[in-house]
């Protein structure tokens, strides 16, 4: 059995009276690819936001390798090795692809005043290293995109933007990757291409645990090891996609039956 990386115990997030997440128990193992599904408003993105410190949970706990990290700030969560993409792309569009990727690699940058402003030789060496890392990472996803390293993100196509967003999340070599509906705004073919590229990366980083929020059931079926289904902030099913999809409670949640 692979060790558990991330665990939540009775995690609850509420907005006013509404419980967006209700007593959620959840486990993620090393190297696991977990699909998080559920109808709109079922609390999937809220779950990501609660994990990454954007919302603070009303009660319950989050554990990373058994260590309690509940309520940690977004900065801290990043330092622990959890990174994410956003449902609506949140890249710094006027900046270059390189700049966006370097932003993702905060943890490995030197912010000393001396090196940044005065010792430009050392800064140049660090820049060179970061550029190489970024280029190598990008070219794994798309060689064409790697050639656009010095172009502003605003000039990229949707799929390239998604790629940059995924690479920004991967460049710091995190332990856990959270993908919030990467297919939004892309064609099924593009989504498939991106997923294949991601699977390729996972082969080389077998410990990386991934949670994927997705509406495309076919995709979930194809890439996920297991699935968790949320409805009204509660977990209503868990298991292999093929098992989960046939459950009546899950069908009811999607089709709105009682």
């Amino acid at each position, binding site marked *: 059995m692979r060790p558990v990386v991330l665990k939540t115990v009775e995690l609850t997030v509420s*907005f*006013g009276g509404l419980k967006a997440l209700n007593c959620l128990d959840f486990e993620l193992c090393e190297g696991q690819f977990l699909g998080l599904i559920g109808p709109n408003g079922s609390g999937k*993105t809220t779950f990501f*936001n609660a994990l990454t410190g*954007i*919302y603070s949970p009303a009660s319950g706990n989050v554990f990373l390798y058994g260590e309690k990290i509940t309520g940690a700030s977004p900065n801290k969560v990043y330092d622990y090795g959890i990174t994410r993409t*956003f*449902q609506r792309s949140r890249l710094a569009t006027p900046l270059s692809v390189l700049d966006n990727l370097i932003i993702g690699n905060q943890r490995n940058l030197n912010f000393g005043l001396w090196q940044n402003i005065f010792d430009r030789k050392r800064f140049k060496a660090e820049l060179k290293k970061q550029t190489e890392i970024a280029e190598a990472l990008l070219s794994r996803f798309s060689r064409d995109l790697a050639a656009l390293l010095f172009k502003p993100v605003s000039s990229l196509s949707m799929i390239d933007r998604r790629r940059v967003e995924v690479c920004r999340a991967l460049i710091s070599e995190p332990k856990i990757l959270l993908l919030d509906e990467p297919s939004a705004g892309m064609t099924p073919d593009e989504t498939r291409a991106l997923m294949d590229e991601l699977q390729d990366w996972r082969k080389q980083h077998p410990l990386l645990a991934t949670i994927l929020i997705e509406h495309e059931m076919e995709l979930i079926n194809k890439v996920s090891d297991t699935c968790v289904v949320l409805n009204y902030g509660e977990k209503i099913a868990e298991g292999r996609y093929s098992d989960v999809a046939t459950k009546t409670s899950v069908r009811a949640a999607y089709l709105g039956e009682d």
Partner: protein
Amino acid sequence: MDLGFFAQYLINGLVQGITYALVAVGFTLFFGVLDVIKFSHGDVLMLGAFTALALFLGLDRLSTPTWLSLTIMLCLGTLTMALLGALLCKFLVLPLKESPPLNTLLITLMFGSVIRESVRLFFPNGSNPKPFPALLPETSINWGNLNLRLDSVILIFTGALAIVLTHLFIQKTRMGLAIRAVAQDEETARLMGINFTKTVLMTFALGSGLAALSGISTGLYYQEINFSMGLMLGVIGFSAAVVGGLGSIYGAIVGGLLFAFLQTLGAIWFSVPAYKDVFAFTVIIMLMAWRPTGLLADRSAERV
């Protein structure tokens, strides 16, 4: 301090507070529908007062009776400013809807500066303070230390009435419903067949009309107006709206009265009158640091 003094401060504070609340309601409305701050609001207020003054000067030549002058000034003053507000929205605010919020702020700030400078340069002798006619009855009653001026009472009631009517308009009419719908969620409102542009323009007209009203009240109360009065009143109105909680009409009223209360308190404590503003603003800045989203607004989380 005896009761008379206390009552005197209370009445003066109320007149001020209602004026501020009128301005703050405008800020709250604009922010509600469009999430923008119209920084020219104070200058629209000032222009409203000057429009009324110009109307008065014209009507005075025709020796119109006072009540009629006052009615015309109020109606035309507010209507012109309502129109100006709608135009500002159509040509400067809405086109910038997709650009960074900072640009909207700057463009309205600069528009305010243009209004201010235009009045200073083009109104006859505009850089000096102008006497504003005393059109309200000047009767007053004395109770001990309290000098209750009838005009104060009228202004408090007019202001309160305007706010109540605005509230009713928003709560009870179809247009009000549209405004609330747009404030809730622009996309859904559009899908439900609400004319977004019309609703926003209407809101801007309404808010700007209220500003003109408060400009005219200020003129009637102090019997003097000047081209730079809008800057301070705008900043105060915005502070009031923010402290109360942007987007909430009750918040605007509470904020307006609170600001007037702080100024009054400052005036009692400090011998130098100018310190009353320093005091009030310091408290406001501290309140903002303490509760950034205001006293009454619900904490809204950003969509991620």
